Each structure stands twice: as structure tokens, then as C-alpha cells.
């Protein structure tokens, strides 16, 4: 099968879906904004990553929201999603509980896993969401979840998100081949933000678009330019429908933009001068808003939806900040399922 350039209509038909996409992008961006604020608190001296209410690495998703909403617009709670070290936008679009997610990022007892996981390890079985900090290692589990759905004759599917840098990892190749051999209902979604940490895609990937690699697995490969939620919606819609209908896996590569550093604290010296400014000028959220307005959406409707989304985030952060830390001894719980604490 050959690579397809996404030729989706730029004008989607479902009004509610697009309103949801807009509001969810705003929600995700606002979530990251509050993470940023909290993360920077107390990082003393000298930006010490160990300090403050949110320690450790922090990978923000600003600019990549269209990928999350365009794909997740098609998903149901029963569909599994595996995300990466940069998971917030996807988690939010998949419907992960915002309060528990925020609390997890703050390391609180009320967090998704009681503070054991942190921002790279968000698990919410209520909506079948998981993520992993090892590049490309979410792909195998997605194929497994997809097979499980197929074996129980459900129409559930799985979606694995990955970065364009992850497409050079062996797990990518193995998982795509396995998915194709099993005809598993899974969609592989590459968020191509042009960098893996500091290394530009063109310096480490032998082809311009990873979509072409789909041919090596006999599956459709779709390239979606423009970081455009509507085009992503359309491309993902086809892939999801194919998977649900038993038509097997699809590979989608989306051109998107990383508006922040790889992680917080990244000096970004590897970026050409002016790149970030240029990317910010093409920020997909205001652009989407402008398009919706141009198509006749009322500003008030947009603001109302966005406002509600933002309020949810605010409430989640209030909840997370006020929540209690776990007792230290709880560290020994859940090492093994169905057993007490380990020591």
C-alpha cells in the first residue's frame, strides 16, 4: 500500500465535535500553563529539578494539542491509548480524570496512582489510558490491547502515540509488523514535532515522512501536514473506522510543533534563531479559533466552552495542591497485585 497525503476536508461537519476539540485544546494548554507555574516554584538554587512541588523532568505538550484532540475525538472509554513521556494533552483528550491527574503530578495520595507514577506514568483504567517513559515502548502494549479487544469480539481499538524520534526505535518496527500480521485494530499516531530532545528529525531519520514506512508493513500510511485539528480529525477518523471494522492497523504521521523545550529547563540552544517565535506565530489554538469564528461559530459559544474547560483545570489544581501527601510507608504498597506491602 502506498503512502497517502491526507486529503481530508478542512471543514468538519460535526459542530459539537469541533467545539469539543477547541475547548479541549484550550484546556490542555491551560493545564500546561498551570503545570509550568507550579513546576517553577521553589526550583532553587540554580533550577534544582529535585525541588518544588513538582520535581523531576517535565515534558510539556504546548503546540501538540491538535494531535490529541483530532485523534481522541473518535475514541470511547473502552478504547485503549498508550502515550509517551509527553502525555498530558493526550490524557486530557482521552478523558483522564483531571483532578487525579493533577494530584498525581503533584505526588499526592489522591493522584492516579497515589504519587507512585508521576507525570510520565499516568494510568487511568476508567478510560484505558496509560503511558511510559521509555521511547516507543507504548507500542507493544497497544498492540496487545488491540488484540484483546479483537479476541473478545469487541469493536474497541487501541491507539499508540509516539514521537517522530521514536520511529527510529526497534520497538516501532516490531510492533507495526506484529500488528499487521495479527490484523490488530490499532492506530499508530506519530506526533512529528521535528525534534527528539535536541536532535532534528532530518539528522536522524533516513526518510522525510515516516508515513512511507507503513508500506513495509502492508498497512496504510498517512501523512498529515499543517498541525491542523480538522485534518487530523479526518485522517484519524478513517483509521479508527478501519480498525473498528476489522480492517487492521494504520500509521499516521502528523506534523506538529513543540512550542516549549524538550523538558522544562531546556535552554534550546539547538534551535535555529527565531524558530520558536515563528512556531508560536502559527500556534494552532488561536488559528483554530479563528477558523471556527470564520465559519460562523459564535465567539461567545467558544468562550463559554473554553471557560468551562479552564475552570475544570483550575479546580483540579486547587484540588491537587490542597490534597495530602501519602504516608511514606505507603511506598511498599502495590509492588505486587493482590498482596500487602512488600519489604
Amino acid at each position, binding site marked *: 500500500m502506498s503512502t497517502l497525503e491526507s486529503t481530508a476536508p478542512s471543514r468538519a461537519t460535526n459542530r459539537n465535535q469541533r467545539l469539543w476539540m477547541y475547548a479541549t485544546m484550550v484546556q490542555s494548554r491551560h493545564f500546561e500553563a498551570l503545570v509550568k507555574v507550579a513546576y517553577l516554584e521553589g526550583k532553587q538554587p540554580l533550577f534544582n529539578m529535585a525541588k518544588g512541588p513538582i520535581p523531576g523532568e517535565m515534558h510539556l505538550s504546548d503546540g501538540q494539542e491538535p494531535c490529541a484532540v483530532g485523534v481522541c475525538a473518535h475514541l470511547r472509554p473502552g478504547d*485503549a491509548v*498508550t502515550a509517551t513521556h509527553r502525555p498530558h494533552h493526550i490524557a486530557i483528550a482521552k478523558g483522564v480524570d483531571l483532578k487525579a491527574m493533577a494530584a498525581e503530578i503533584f505526588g499526592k495520595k489522591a*493522584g*492516579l*496512582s*497515589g504519587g*507512585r*507514577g508521576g507525570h510520565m*506514568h499516568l*494510568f*487511568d*483504567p476508567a478510560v484505558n489510558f*496509560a503511558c*511510559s517513559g*521509555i521511547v516507543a*515502548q507504548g*507500542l*507493544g*502494549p*497497544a*498492540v*496487545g*490491547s*488491540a*488484540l*484483546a*479487544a479483537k*479476541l*473478545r469480539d469487541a469493536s474497541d481499538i*487501541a491507539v499508540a502515540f509516539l514521537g517522530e524520534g521514536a520511529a527510529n526505535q*526497534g*520497538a516501532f518496527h*516490531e*510492533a507495526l*509488523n*506484529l500488528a499487521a*500480521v*495479527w490484523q490488530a485494530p490499532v492506530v499508530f499516531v506519530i506526533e512529528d514535532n521535528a525534534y527528539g530532545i535536541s536532535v532534528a528529525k532530518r539528522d536522524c531519520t533516513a526518510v522525510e515522512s515516516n508515513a512511507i514506512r507503513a508500506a513495509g508493513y502492508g498497512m496504510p500510511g498517512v501523512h498529515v501536514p499543517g498541525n491542523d485539528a480538522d485534518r487530523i480529525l479526518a485522517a484519524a477518523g478513517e483509521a479508527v473506522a478501519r480498525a473498528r471494522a476489522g480492517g487492521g492497523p494504520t500509521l499516521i504521521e502528523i506534523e506538529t510543533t513543540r512550542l516549549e523545550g524538550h523538558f522544562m529547563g531546556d535552554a534550546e540552544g539547538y534551535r535555529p534563531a527565531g524558530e520558536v517565535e515563528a512556531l508560536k506565530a502559527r500556534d494552532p489554538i488561536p488559528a483554530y479559533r479563528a477558523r471556527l469564528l470564520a465559519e460562523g461559530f459564535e465567539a461567545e459559544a467558544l468562550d463559554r466552552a473554553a471557560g468551562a474547560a479552564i475552570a475544570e483545570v483550575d479546580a483540579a489544581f486547587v484540588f491537587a495542591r490542597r490534597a495530602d501527601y501519602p504516608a511514606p510507608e505507603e511506598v511498599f*504498597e*502495590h*509492588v*505486587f*497485585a*493482590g498482596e500487602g506491602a*512488600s519489604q
Partner: protein
Amino acid sequence: MTTATTTTRRLTIAKAMSEALAQEMARDPSVLVMGEDIGKLGGVFGATQGLLDRFGPERVRDTPISETAFMGAAVGLAASGMRPVAELMFVDFFGVCMDAIYNLAAKQNYFSGGKVSCPMVIMTSVGGGYGDGGQHSQCLYATFAHLPGLKVVIPSNARDAKGLMLSAIRDDNPVVFMFHKALQGMGWLGTVQRSITDVPEADYTTPIGVAAVVREGTDVTLVGLGLTVHLALDAAAALAKTGVSAEVVDLRTVSPLDRATIRASAAKTGRLVVIDDDYMSFGVSAEVIATVCEHGGARLRSPPMRIAYPDIPVPFTPVMEHFVLPNAEKVVAAVQAMLEAAP
């Protein structure tokens, strides 16, 4: 532990494993088996004989040579309510797929705060002694036992193999089931006859995490696992002729280690020799010795000894390989030296 009905059937470990798999697949539709050559071939080491014919290709899946993908898929299947059993043909191949095992499977329950368990079995062959060279003869018990979140079992006989396999499949956690090629009962590998035992046809479990005193004695404790249990038993028989009474402990599980049984036996006999065919340093023997010697352990009359495979790759040529593998004579000599030094 269910008590089993008596029977006089004698099975090899290979047959005991495949019987356990078949019985559990019949009982529990969520169990499925996958790996390389486990279908049509019945497993290179015979652990899946007859399963494809009986349960069909949906539940008995020959995979591509893609260990990363199928181990990862097993994690996704386990997260989705299935109980996959995945074969890693030789433990020596762990290096191509360890991330899925130790960073995904082993940590899923913890990262999710107990919300997403990972009930899966990884069965894998270990051990040398038949001239298969340095990439097909390793044991690597300690490699797996060192990493938290995994249970690791290694049966020394068919009866335990069936019981441990049923326990492993029913466990809600990832269990690494290591079977030793010298005990497997494949004609082409040669087999220690003592590993072929009576095996109840009924359903029964052998508990994970519980060692067995397989021979009682008073003068010295010999600790072994898998094949080395048989070396210890041979040594004990030889020592008995010289009036030395050796107790033999079969670890059966290396993680979690049954420290109480080890300490009790060492305390009783006052002498300890550990026999391990894995690389010596940072291995099972050191852990057993530390368990006994450390604060809270047991008092010994003589310094403990370890007889392990040395810290060198496994050579191909039998004259070299057998020179360095542990054997009963080395155990007898060690015990005699120990008794001479401090009678």
C-alpha cells in the same frame, strides 16, 4: 496449596508444563500462549506440545522474531483482562526485550497504584552443559531476581513444574518461569532422570515464594535451584557414605526469596554451601550467603562457601565447559574441606 491426588504417572518437566498450560487454558478462557515456534512446533523445548491442535491459532500464537513487540503485547493483553503466557526461547535473548519485561510488566501494577495489574507468565529456558556456546547456555537467575516487580521461579522436577506453572498463570503478577534444559526431558538434551517425577493429573498449585527442604540432614546445608538441586542431592548421597549428613534446600523461587527456610536450615546445620550454575558474582549464591550471614540471619560454625559458574562467558568446547560447571564432586570436596577446617 491444593493437595493433589496420588498417581503413578511419571512426566518430564516439558510434559508437566504443557499439561499445566492445557488444563489452565481449558479452565480459563483468558489464558493464551505466544512466542516463537510454540505453535506448530510445540515449543523448541516442548513446553507447548499439543496446544495448537487443541486450542487453535487464536489462543496459541506463533510470533515473528520480535520479542520486544510480543512481550509488550503481553503487557497490553494483561492490562486488558487476558492472562498471556509468552515464551522467550532462551533466557540468553533477554537483552533484546528486557525493557518490556522489567520496565513495563514489572512496574505496571506499581505505576498504576494497583489499578492495572499485569498477570502474565514469561517462560524461558536456561542453562548449558550441552555445548551450545556462550549465547545459548546462560542462566541469568540473578539478572531477573535483582529487578523488583517480577516473581521468578525455577522448578527442579516435573511435579513442581506443573504446580508452579499453575500458580504462575493464576498469579496476578508477572512471573518468570525458568526451566532448565538439562531437566527438560527432551531426549535430544539429555535429562537428569530425577527431574522426571510422578505428576498428579489433578489441578494443584505449588506456592511461589516457598523453598523446599528436599533432603533432611544435620551437618551442612546445601542450597540449590533447578539443576543444582540435583548436584546437591548427588553430593548429599555421596557424603552420606562418608557419614556426613547433608540437608538440601531447593529454592524453587528466587524472587521473592524464601529467606526463612534458608535461615532455618543454616541455623540447624551450622554450615552452608550454595550451588549455582549462573555467573558467580552478584548472583544467587551471594544473596543466599548474605541472607544467612547478615544481621538477623543465622549463626554458622564455618564460613559459607559458594560453588558457582565463574565470571566468564560460557565456552563451547565441552572440555572447558564441564571444567567450570558446578558438579557433585566439587560440592563434596567443598563440604569435606569445610569439615576438615572446622569439624
